[in-house]
């Protein structure tokens, strides 16, 4: 059935039931406690993104700064900006590129390094992920051209579809690989000049290139975010929140949603969150998540922690979880260095350190 006919049918008869259905986390996504039980490397509010530089150093974006993360968890400030750093990427030539929301610092460790604020004839607005492209270029995920990065939740509830993926060559020329995306968050260079990007509000990864976009991994059980190449082939995918039927329902109820956005404080909206359980006014408290005073691990999650190991064939292999009752939620970045896997839980403000070998052996057996 064509999209138009499908929409017409929905309009006449309603197809909300299908929209309210969400995929289950089973198979490779079967919940475990790997993230929740992972050792904490360091803790600081405002942690946003991770990058392993060419020299092997681990850097993190944290508020308006870039910090070097020592093996002992000590954070050393190496750069400071006038606004929050929203993305971080290591280039093969040793530079660090940093997203600053509506601009990109191409050499972030240099105080007077070059910046770009326009790409493909359009101002950058919500840069949330950068990846090094072949031949010295950059791939940029500009989440929304309307809402700034910090207001991603507005973009979801307003059903924003203005995200784009920009390929910026070494010569400074930029072109849109894809536009009109329902939030672009996370990008990864592919060998054939294409890119893999997360289209977050549609819960899918898409392959983009030359203005075309094709689903590569659809029906993800959460909101996909940044990705990082894995040494053993494939990549690590972060999922910053899990899908719930309640949020899907609210997304179908236009009047309710508008009323909620107008009258309720944003942190109490019925919407995915990076962390939860901090205030009794949050939705999904009480009976829906607790039984006999104990948080049900199978309760509808308002926030969740999830990292998925995806193979070269785009098939999920295994996953690391921090379940509803856990703390390490809102995972937005992951970095691999040798056998070390660093996971950034933005919700908890923590960087976790795991062993790639141990987690893969522990989960796959």
């Amino acid at each position, binding site marked *: 059935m064509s999209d138009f006919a499908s929409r017409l049918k929905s309009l006449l008869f309603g197809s909300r039931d299908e929209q309210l*259905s969400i995929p*289950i986390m089973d*198979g490779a996504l079967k919940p475990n406690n790997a993230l929740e039980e992972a050792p904490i490397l360091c803790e600081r509010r405002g942690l946003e993104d991770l990058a392993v530089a060419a020299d092997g150093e681990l850097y993190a974006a944290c508020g308006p700064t870039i910090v070097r993360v020592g093996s002992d968890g000590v954070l050393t400030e190496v750069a400071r900006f006038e606004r929050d750093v929203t993305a971080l990427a290591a280039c093969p030539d040793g530079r660090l590129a940093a997203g600053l929301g509506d601009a990109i610092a191409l050499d972030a460790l240099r105080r007077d390094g070059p910046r770009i604020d326009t790409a493909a004839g359009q101002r950058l607005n919500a840069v949330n992920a950068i990846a090094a492209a072949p031949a010295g270029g950059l791939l940029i995920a500009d989440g929304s051209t309307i809402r700034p990065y910090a207001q991603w939740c507005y973009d979801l509830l307003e059903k924003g579809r203005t995200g784009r993926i920009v390929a910026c060559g070494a010569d400074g020329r930029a072109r849109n690989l894809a536009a009109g995306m329902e939030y672009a968050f996370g990008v990864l260079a592919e060998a054939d000049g294409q890119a893999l990007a997360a289209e977050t509000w549609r819960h899918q990864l898409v392959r983009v290139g030359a203005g075309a976009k094709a*689903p590569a991994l659809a029906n993800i059980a959460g909101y996909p975010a940044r990705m990082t190449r894995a040494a053993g082939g494939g990549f690590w995918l972060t999922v910053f929140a899990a899908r719930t039927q309640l949020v899907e329902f609210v997304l179908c109820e236009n009047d309710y949603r508008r009323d909620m956005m107008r009258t309720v404080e944003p942190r109490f909206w019925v919407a995915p969150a990076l962390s939860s359980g901090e205030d009794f006014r949050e939705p999904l408290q009480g009976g829906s998540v607790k039984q006999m005073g104990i948080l049900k691990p199978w309760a509808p999650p308002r926030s969740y922690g999830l990292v998925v190991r995806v193979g070269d064939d785009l098939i999920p292999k295994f996953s690391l979880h921090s379940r509803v009752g856990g703390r390490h939620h809102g995972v937005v970045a992951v970095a691999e260095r040798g056998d070390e896997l660093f996971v950034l839980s933005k919700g908890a403000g923590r960087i976790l350190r795991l062993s790639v070998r141990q987690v893969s052996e522990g989960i796959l*057996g």
Partner: protein
Amino acid sequence: MMTAAVLEMRQVTKIYARAAAIEDIDFTLLTGEIHALLGENGAGKSTLTKIIAGVVVPTSGTVLLEGHEANLRTPADAIRQGIAMVFQETSLVQSMTVAQNLFLGRESFFNRNRGVNIAAQQFMQSLNFHVDPTVLVASLGAAQKQMVEIARAVLMRARIIVFDEPTATLTPEEKKHFFYLVRTLKSHGVSVIFISHALEEALLISDRITVLRDGKHVLTDLTKNLDRNKIIQAMVGRDLSKELYGTRKATVRPAGKLALSVQNLRVGNVVKNNSLSVFAGQITGIFGLVGSGRTETFKVVSGVIKRDYKHGGKVLLDGKAVRYRVPAPGIRDGVAYITEDRKAEGFFETMSIRSNILVNKLAKAGIAAFWVRRREADSLGEHWIKALNVRAVGKSVRVIELSGGNQQKVVIAKSLAQDPNLIIFDEPTRGVDVGAIAEIHQLINQLADAGKAVVVISSYLPEVMALSDRLLVARQGKIVEEFSALEATEEKVMYAAVH
């Protein structure tokens, strides 16, 4: 007291169309013993018991009842001489009440319904069977029908009762009660012949066991001298213990592409917000007790039944949302559902193997296969008969004439002829002998190895554990637990299914 022989069969042979169904069989049934008769489908058990019950006349040999030659040429002869048979498929008249069925053929000249009902009530109570004698048989469940059959046999004051697969349709609680009844019959001096594919039951209840293979007598011994492996070896001529439900899996197949995603599915009160995924290249086992919604979920997936119109959830096949109202579009999309009730839903029983397979092939091809050459149809039939090792006299033999295991192979062949990508086996080995079970298991494994997404629904835990790469447990209309085959134990799975 198990001393005197109540029934003796000497050198009994029965030949059908130049093929011997049983050959030179010697069989002895002692007074007051429970004698289990075991063998693969097609081993000759049914022929042997039909001779005893007067349904079939032997080609040669003698049958002695209490030392005297018996003339068992009709079922009436057998009944007169105290031999009753309780068939697997009940022989009750559906449109009559329980009481009328009990006294069918024994009515007095002036028959009163009330009198019949009271007599039936008293008789059923004496057997401790809780079945209302005034209700129509058609309204009874399978287990209750079985009880009425048994009661009728007892009412005939039979000296010998033959039970053919009596426990196949009974719940565990009903089985327990059935065994109690059989032991009571034994204590009253009644001799029982017990045919079952469930070897554990035979080992539990019988005094002696006889095994037939390919129409020949292989073994008769006291049950205490036998065990499961010895019986299987006698039945199939080789040790199948490892092939069947042997050792734990050391490795599992890795998951391939997501082949099927069921999301928040609802079907009346049976399936409640059920979600699950099935991956290519793996066997996904579904275990659950009766009423857990396993079968209904997959019947929705294949279009046999429909999900709720409102709030019915979503089914994604290879990432595409589907809503089948009939099975045909599902078949065209590569979904095969191999039913648990092969006799009612699995095949056309009066059609040949070839025609049955061809019908399904046509269903997949649709209008494109309007014209089919006879030679193509023949070669299709021959291919699948050979591929699945269907043992039949010829490819044109009617399916009803095949043994249970071979019938099941035909049902499987019908579906595989459609070249499906998602194959759902619902109770694939129910009522199938051990030899055929091993072959069916091997086939299921081959399908998964070939990259197909395979689902095996079974209520027999050792089977589902031996086959599955991942195991989903259903309870009260939804999947409640998932195990990798490496971590699953019978205790864990059963705990999830019950609690």
